């Protein structure tokens, strides 16, 4: 079995990594329907020229020069999409704990809370995860890695960050702090959500020196104090997983009083408090397919959540409750369904491009719009990218075409044709 798929995958990854250092080619994409994800909107029959990994020109009849030319035949071109809030590269097989690095639990159990906000999940990120090619061949160029909360950890899961799915080892842009509140966090706050505010304020007291570091009430390491000091001073984005309307209102009050820049994750009942969210300029990452009362925090869940939030002026992006990592590609189905339920199409695309890029402070690190000077992270689609009826035809990251292959396409191709004698474990071209 010398030719195992894993070995070949590693080889492919190595070759691709090497090509990443080759001098950047020029690329001209001709005659596309360019969805700029910017104020320029959609440009029909338009060419996009890429030089040195950046978008150099947008127009019609652009000269090709030395560029390699792709004829888009009028099909849609978008920025590479945001893949949602995921564990891509920090988990391989969800059910196998040895392959999962998504959350910290240094405590021995639910009653033994360990608050380690300095935990940075991006340090577990493996750019050679098989989830990376599986995801990016579907037109997804970047994702926000989350630090989950679990018993033995705390309400504060730690920090996540944005990774580009281009083989880079390190996260880009600022980190974000992850907090879980409401019913989901109650098992991390002494069985009552009321205690969540008490615990958060206790941490603020400690960060601000009102609880000395050597106090029996101190919960943080020096690194933890430094980390929280940044986020509790308005210095970074705090992603709060929360659903119930009343909890969201308390969070808005709390965040305003303590100068914390929050974004909501989930917010099944966010639509009920949409004006307040808009007034506080809080972006919301919604699961646009969540319409069932999955628990008592989500009784108001509706497919119109995204549309109602947007109509009130809230910046809306997307996240998946269920299979966020292995099936991150499903995120555009969420956007499409939000559109089917009243969200304007442009807002659906913005939810996969500019809204998350702005909320996470990575507008310069990912190509979230098609504009001159932007990183050329682009996708050419077979049709409307928010419709599951269409696929990504080609993805470019920094102007370079990525191989449209993954372990899944390799498996598919191995079994696509009839057996010819030699078992399928032998290379296709030998059979």
């Amino acid at each position, binding site marked *: 079995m010398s030719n195992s798929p894993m070995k070949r995958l590693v080889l492919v990854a190595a070759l691709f990594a090497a090509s990443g250092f080759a001098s950047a080619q020029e690329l001209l994409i001709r005659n596309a329907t360019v969805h700029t994800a910017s104020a320029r909107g959609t440009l029909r029959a338009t060419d996009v020229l890429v030089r040195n990994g950046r978008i150099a020109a947008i127009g019609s009849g652009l000269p090709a020069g030395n560029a390699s030319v792709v004829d888009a035949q009028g099909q849609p071109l978008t920025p590479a999409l945001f893949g949602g809030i995921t564990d891509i590269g920090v988990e391989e097989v969800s059910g196998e704990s040895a392959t999962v690095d998504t959350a910290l639990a240094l405590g021995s159990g639910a009653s033994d809370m360990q608050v380690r906000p300095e935990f940075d999940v991006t340090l577990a990120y493996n750019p050679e995860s098989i989830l990376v090619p599986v995801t990016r061949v579907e037109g997804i160029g970047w994702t926000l890695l989350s630090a989950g909360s679990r018993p033995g950890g705390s309400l504060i899961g730690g920090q996540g960050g944005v990774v580009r799915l281009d083989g880079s080892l390190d996260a880009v842009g600022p980190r974000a702090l992850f907090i879980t509140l409401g019913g989901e966090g109650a098992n991390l706050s002494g069985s009552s959500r009321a205690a969540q505010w008490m615990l958060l304020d206790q941490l603020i007291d400690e960060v601000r020196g009102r609880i000395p570091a050597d106090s029996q009430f101190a919960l943080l390491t020096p690194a933890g104090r430094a980390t929280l000091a940044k986020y509790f001073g308005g210095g970074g984005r705090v992603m709060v997983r929360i659903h119930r309307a009343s909890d969201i209102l308390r969070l808005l009050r709390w965040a305003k009083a303590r100068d914390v820049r929050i974004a909501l994750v989930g917010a099944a009942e966010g639509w009920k408090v949409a004006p307040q969210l808009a007034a506080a300029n809080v972006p919301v990452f919604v699961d646009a397919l*969540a319409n*069932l009362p999955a628990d*008592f925090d989500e009784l108001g869940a509706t497919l119109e959540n995204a549309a109602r939030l947007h109509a009130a002026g809230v910046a809306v992006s997307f996240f998946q409750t*269920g299979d966020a990592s292995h099936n991150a590609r499903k995120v555009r*189905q969420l956007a499409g369904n939000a559109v089917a339920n009243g969200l304007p199409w442009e807002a659906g695309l913005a939810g996969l491009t500019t809204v998350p890029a702005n909320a996470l402070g990575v507008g310069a690190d990912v190509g979230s719009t098609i504009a001159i000077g932007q990183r050329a992270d682009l996708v050419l689609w077979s049709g409307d990218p928010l419709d*599951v009826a269409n696929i990504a035809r080609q993805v470019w990251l920094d102007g370079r075409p990525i191989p449209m292959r993954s372990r899944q396409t390799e498996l598919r191709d191995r079994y696509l044709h009839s057996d010819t004698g030699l078992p399928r474990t032998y290379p296709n071209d030998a059979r």
Partner: protein
Amino acid sequence: MKTTTAALAAVLLAGCASVPSSKPAADGKVDLGFTNDPYPGTYTRVAGPPVLLQHATVLTGTGTRLDDADVLMRDGRIVAVGTDVEAPADAVRVDATGKWVTPGIIDIHSHLGVYPSPGMSAHSDGNEATSPVTAQVWAEHSIWPQDPGFHTALAGGVTSLQILPGSANLIGGRGVTVKNVSSVTYQGMKFPGAPWGLKMACGENPKRVYGSKGGPSTRMANIAGYRAAFADAAEYMKKRKDAAGKPDSDKDSGGKRDLKLDTLAGAINGDIRVNIHCYRADEMAIMLDLAKEFGFKIAAFHHAVEAYKIADRLGAEGVCGALWADWWGFKMESFDGIQENIALVDRAKDGCAIVHSDSEEGIQRLNQEAAKVIANAGRIGIAITPEHAIRWLTQNPAKAMGILEQTGTLEVGKMADVVLWNGSPFSSYAQAEQVYVDGARLYDRRDRTRQPTSDFLLGQDVMRGGVR
């Protein structure tokens, strides 16, 4: 295509009416009572006027597409499908110009009602995880008919579904097929004449659940567990059969009824459809051998993310694959999932591909799952038409569930389970506008009076606005 004649309709109607509610003895088998039903269905269709859907793109579920076609429903049945259908004067006419009409969608794998929303611990009724073989339990006795998920599934065009026990056990129990109608009791939803399903599970789940509870802890013990159970059932059947031939006024000379073995005997007899949760190709091959060893037929492998590796064999053995479009990677046995699985199972000679959900979210948009399959098949040069793909959600599950004579296609005489879509169903933007169950308009996106609400959700918004 012209309207089918009324005479043919009558024949087909008669055929449907003769579908028995319990096992027949037509093939000379003695009815040993393995599938008697002491909890009989009480479903009756909601009465309504005749309905004529006009000028639609109609996917019949038999592989045919009709453009600018009409569908006439009357007295709960499909009366005509074709062009220029004449309707009785009292028929409600619906202009479906630009819209599409399909058979009602059928989900062969649902846990609605047994794992309902909200997902409270008190509602966790889908896995009797106390013993690896619990063939005696019936999922129908766990169904909470007030699960709001039934209504959201209806809004997604689902008119029939099989509700199964979970996959913790080697043999989890009986599943039941229901019509997606609101009722205070599950008996009021029970699909008339539908056979039960038997739920079995391969692989990791039984190992994980029982590994520290007395086993099985290995795949080899999984197989030994099925074999022991079916060996018991075979002996039980023989005993009951021998006794049945003897004078016995109390009908008990075969010994006490064993509820567990009744179900397994029903499966061996072919009266209970065998549905096996099984991911890996090698394990499916073992289960096919197991079925031969004990003389039962497998209706469908469920989840089966590796079905594409043995697609030809599944087709040859007449076993359906009830599959997801794209789930993978959540455990080792799902690591080899590919997005072309359904297309490759479908492509095989006599292939029977089914899009299933196993999810209260997925069941709401099985049409979109199929759309993904079509799109991915296109990547490898397999062109799949809408009229073909709709069979994955209608005709094929109906066949595997044993209800194809009654529903699953738009053929004259069948139950009028029909969905009117706002366009092609194979799109993110597809929405069911009207859903008919036995000819009754039980969901209408534009008519508040045809949008059911669960008891659970009633009054939950009384204080809305109080949160300020």
